[in-house]
């Protein structure tokens, strides 16, 4: 199936490219090479209920190095643009034993006409959702709330988008090996007078999801919300008698998940952000008590940030206006499981590199770590932008 997907993208690209080269005016390409290396020190809590005496055999020191080669190739002819986008990830890490993986984060061909019609085939990140930390509408890809800027892996999709002045219509097909595992999605977006709104419908295998997203932008603040009603879950649960329930093994009951938040500029330096998430398919206080009693055997359910139905996020950022640095204190609190996480985080950015320092302090009885600290260095190699690979005048 992977080969089929790869071949599909390349065949689509070459077919479009050859067709359009008959009328070709120019092709251009750009590439970028990003090297990221992350060193982590984890202070493991020996008294953790989830991981007593480190039964999970976690390392105190972890190291990950990732190389992202990114290529973009564009061909423009008579208002028709074809684009090939490749983003690979070569990853070396030593969590259990040292290993190196290679995979494509993105590999897609996009064909657009008059900036109005877009056809896409290939592996591409799904850009749904208005939430800064959590995106309930983005049913396949969930970003890491502790590092929302991570480069995420795309999904194999066939997509058609039709853009109008204030409206956009999107149709998606997510092919799978078996016909019954394929997913379909429709999305409608609307933008006017500082308001953006969107509605989505997903047919995910044999399940359904109905979603909305909304955002408002003012002079000093922004506000947003997104949510879904869905009849599937990817979460383990604990039932009323304390038994562990696997995802989607119960009846197709519709459940709600939503997020709402905003950002306010306090002055030139300080910005306050906050977000709230509600997940009906997570644990209530009674189920948390069952869960705690069954640890460590129920550790599969563990989420370091929040296992309860309600989670709050708050962040205060200080930005050095003329420099390229910022310091941030992020806090996550789950009042159901009483999980509290405080994370000071700083970033220094220069023309070709970025350094991120972060510490995570956990303050709850079943945390795995007392704290975690990490340094992430990203190096951006010199790039090539918009180099012309050929220029053929029409019918020359």
């Amino acid at each position, binding site marked *: 199936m992977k080969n089929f997907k790869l071949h599909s993208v390349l065949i689509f690209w070459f077919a479009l490219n050859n067709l359009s080269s008959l009328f070709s005016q120019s092709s251009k390409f750009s590439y970028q090479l990003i090297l990221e290396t992350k060193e982590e020190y984890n202070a493991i809590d020996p008294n953790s209920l989830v991981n007593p005496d480190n039964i999970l055999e976690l390392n105190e020191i972890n190291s990950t190095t990732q190389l992202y080669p990114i290529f973009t190739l564009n061909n423009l002819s008579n208002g028709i643009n074809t684009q090939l986008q490749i983003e690979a990830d070569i990853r070396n890490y030593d969590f259990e034993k040292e290993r190196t993986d290679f995979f494509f984060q993105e590999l897609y061909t996009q064909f657009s006409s008059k900036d109005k019609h877009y056809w896409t085939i290939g592996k591409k990140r799904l850009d749904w959702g208005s939430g800064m930390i959590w995106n309930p509408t983005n049913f396949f890809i969930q970003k890491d709330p502790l590092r929302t800027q991570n*480069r995420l892996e795309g999904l194999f999709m066939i997509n058609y988008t039709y853009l109008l002045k204030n409206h956009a219509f999107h149709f998606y097909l997510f092919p799978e090996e078996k016909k019954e595992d394929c997913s379909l999605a429709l999305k409608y977006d609307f933008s006017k007078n500082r308001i953006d709104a969107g509605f989505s419908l997903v047919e995910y295998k044999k399940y359904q999801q109905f979603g909305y997203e909304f955002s408002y932008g003012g002079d000093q*603040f922004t506000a947003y919300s997104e949510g879904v009603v869905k009849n599937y879950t990817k979460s383990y649960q604990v039932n009323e008698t304390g038994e562990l329930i696997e995802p989607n093994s119960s009846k197709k009951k519709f459940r709600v998940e939503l997020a709402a938040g905003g950002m306010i500029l306090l002055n030139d330096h300080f910005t306050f952000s906050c977000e709230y998430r509600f997940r009906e398919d997570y644990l209530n206080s009674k189920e948390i008590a069952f869960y705690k009693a069954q640890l460590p055997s129920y550790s599969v359910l563990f989420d370091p940030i929040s296992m309860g139905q309600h989670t709050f996020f708050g962040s205060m950022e200080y930005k050095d206006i003329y420099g390229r640095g910022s310091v941030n204190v992020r806090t996550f609190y789950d009042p159901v499981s009483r999980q509290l996480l405080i994370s000071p985080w700083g970033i220094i950015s220069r023309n070709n590199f970025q350094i991120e320092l972060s510490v995570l302090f956990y303050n709850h009885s079943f945390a795995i770590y007392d704290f975690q600290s990490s340094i992430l260095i990203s190096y951006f190699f010199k790039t090539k932008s918009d180099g012309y690979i050929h220029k053929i005048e029409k019918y020359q």
Partner: protein
Amino acid sequence: MKPIVLFLFMLSPFLNHYKEVDYLELLDKSIYCEQANIRMEVYKDNKEMKFYEMEFYRLNEKMRMEFTAPATEKGRRMLNDHSSLWMYLPRTSKVMKLPFKQSFMGSDASNSDLMRMTFKKDYEITNASKKESNRIELELKAKDREVSYNKVLITFDTEKKVPVKQEMYSLSNKLIKTLLYDKVVSVDGEYIPSELTIHDELQSNSSTKLSYTNIKKKGNKPTEFFTLGSLKK
């Protein structure tokens, strides 16, 4: 009584001229271009703190910028459709909505300074006075409180029909920012300043310089290019 009548009589040709010429429209037109490359340099104590290079696109009140340098910012995009402002982050392929009064990429300009430049829609002329043979000073007042600066003083070159200097004041009549327009070039038979320096008067010893190259008065991007949907593509 007579001197006043004489003074008004002497002034009347100029006042009539000021009413006849739509300076706000001229101002908007003089800084309007639909395509350009911009290099922005941010200085503090005469030292370059950072720079950005962007491709700039505009269609009436809508603007879009695509960052090409430095390498850490390559691929970042910004869009203003005059009512909302978004930033596209290539790492995550996501967009985030931005407040208009936030500093533009850590410079002396706010997002609205650079992404919402329409005098005719936001201001009215309350006074005009001749400074030199080819210079006049216009005093503009904001039409409503939603506009970032309550009062703007503009020195306008009547010969080349371009602004020379622009001072922006707060509601309490405090000078907030000064903009200096420089290096006037001719594009498609019209003059346009190709350099803009912004001084934030509330910050000491800082300035932001924007240099425009490859300026095109008329671009080829359709309305759909300036939409949120297109920004993600």
